């Protein structure tokens, strides 16, 4: 199914990160191939967010290498924007731009970064808004939408940049339960179309359905990498077992 022989789209080798004296990430190795879906899970504070934020350099790593689409990313590189345009990111707290309409939120990136005309950008934006089922709200402002709708807009905003890989940082954990399904549906559709995805989430249903691999992290290290069924039914490490029992316990 996956072409493992090709060069990976995202490749992290020996990556370390410190916040001051505190070692937030230690010796992270992970490669993600085109079309692959990776779910990252682990207890709070284990470094999941930090790891995916290093991929588009919202956080700078201090050791090891990260490459995206063949190009190495580093904290002091000049054209980091170029890389970020290939990497979509969806945040836990949506982070839509509240002073712009939904439509403007979506057209901003393509118009500013890709030199797309307003008309073309609007067409593109409407296309993606339809896909996430909120085309009717295009003229509204973000605070007027429900959390679930805002998150779907945020996904559409990332897609407008036609990214090669999408990063999701707990996209459903700020949502009311009845909103979660709508967002997950959009993500599943995206996965089925072959988008490369790295998703930090504790939604086990989603992981089972979509993920090629589950990465389990704890205390800044990758402890276990396995296929979802394998990981959920038969976790190898004690820490993963503890984590899963706590997750299911609630």
């Amino acid at each position, binding site marked *: 199914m996956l072409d493992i022989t090709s060069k990976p789209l995202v490749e992290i080798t020996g990556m370390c990160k410190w916040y001051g004296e505190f070692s937030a990430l230690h010796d992270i190795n992970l490669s993600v191939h085109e079309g692959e879906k990776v779910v990252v899970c682990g207890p709070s504070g284990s470094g999941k967010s930090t790891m995916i934020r290093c991929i588009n350099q919202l956080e700078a790593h201090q050791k090891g290498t990260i490459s995206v689409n063949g190009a190495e990313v580093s904290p002091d590189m000049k054209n980091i924007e170029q890389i*970020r345009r290939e*990497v979509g990111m969806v945040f836990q707290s949506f982070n839509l*731009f509240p002073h712009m309409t939904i439509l403007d939120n979506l057209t901003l990136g393509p118009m500013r970064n890709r030199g797309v005309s307003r008309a073309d950008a609007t067409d593109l934006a409407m296309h993606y808004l339809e896909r996430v089922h909120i085309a009717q709200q295009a003229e509204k402002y973000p605070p007027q939408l429900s959390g679930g709708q805002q998150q779907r807009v945020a996904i559409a905003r990332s897609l407008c940049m036609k990214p090669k890989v999408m990063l999701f940082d707990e996209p459903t954990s700020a949502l009311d339960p009845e909103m979660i399904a709508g967002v997950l549906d959009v993500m599943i559709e995206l996965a089925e179309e072959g988008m490369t995805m790295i998703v930090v989430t504790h939604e086990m249903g989603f992981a089972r359905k979509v993920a090629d691999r589950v990465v389990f992290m704890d205390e800044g290290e990758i402890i276990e990498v396995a296929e979802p069924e394998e990981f959920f039914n038969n976790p190898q490490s004690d820490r993963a077992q503890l984590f899963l029992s706590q997750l299911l316990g609630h």
Partner: protein
Amino acid sequence: MDRNAPPPKPPKKRLTLVDYILFGSVAALVIFSGYRVNDVLVYNWEWSRVLNFVVRVDDETGQYFTNLLVRGLETTLRLAVWGTILATIIGVVMGYWRTCENLTLRIISRCYVELIRNIPPVVFIFIFFFFISSQIFPAIGLDDVDPDAAVFANPVFHFLFGDPRLLSNFLAGLLCLAMFEGAYVTEIVRAGIQAVPKGQWEAARAIGLSPIRVLGDIILPQALRKILPPLAGQFITLIKDSAIVSLISIQELTFMATEVAATTTKVFETWILVGGMYFILCYSFAVLFAWLERQAARSRR
């Protein structure tokens, strides 16, 4: 019940006895002060002599001319408008630098703000005025511009910057004022930028916007809306502070008023009149800013 019935009227706001007593005492105080000035000081009011310095009538031709005080008011108005623009530019740049990661920029802006906030305005203006009028202006040849050159001797220039013969005088005052007020605008802008949630920076960067776009498209528009009220207050302070530059002989309203008060010896009339002029100017700006705030609030819905 009838759904279409009109809603009950809100209770009328009425003045209570306490309000009447308050108004009464204020009125009594005003009347008493007037009485003191009139009878005890034996002050001879002569408004016409001071009003002559607002508009002067040519006795022979019967034509009206605007006089010193109006010219001073014009200069104050120019100082206010240009000062606001310049202070905004300084404030936005410095305010952004205050929030930068780059240490050099942070040190520069921090020094600027602390220096100005911890020196009395008058002292700062004397020092800075000496510096620009003795060093910078001669260096760029501003002291001996030809007032009859085409650039200067046209009505547009005159409207924007006043009499070209007083150009270096005006610019010196303007720069002093803008540098001074810019420090306060800097702090307001910094607070506004820092009030924008971190997630906005991250989302803007994540879609690949360049640093300047992140600031211009995402951060500043949001910061500006948050700081419009304190900013408006600062600009009105700027108009009032412009009186300070009279000390370095910038020929604005307060400077002219000092002259008029000295020549006419009609101190009360002059300063009451000038106070009224400042009030109207500042209050108009306050109304304008309040309107701008409502517009901004509406566009946000």
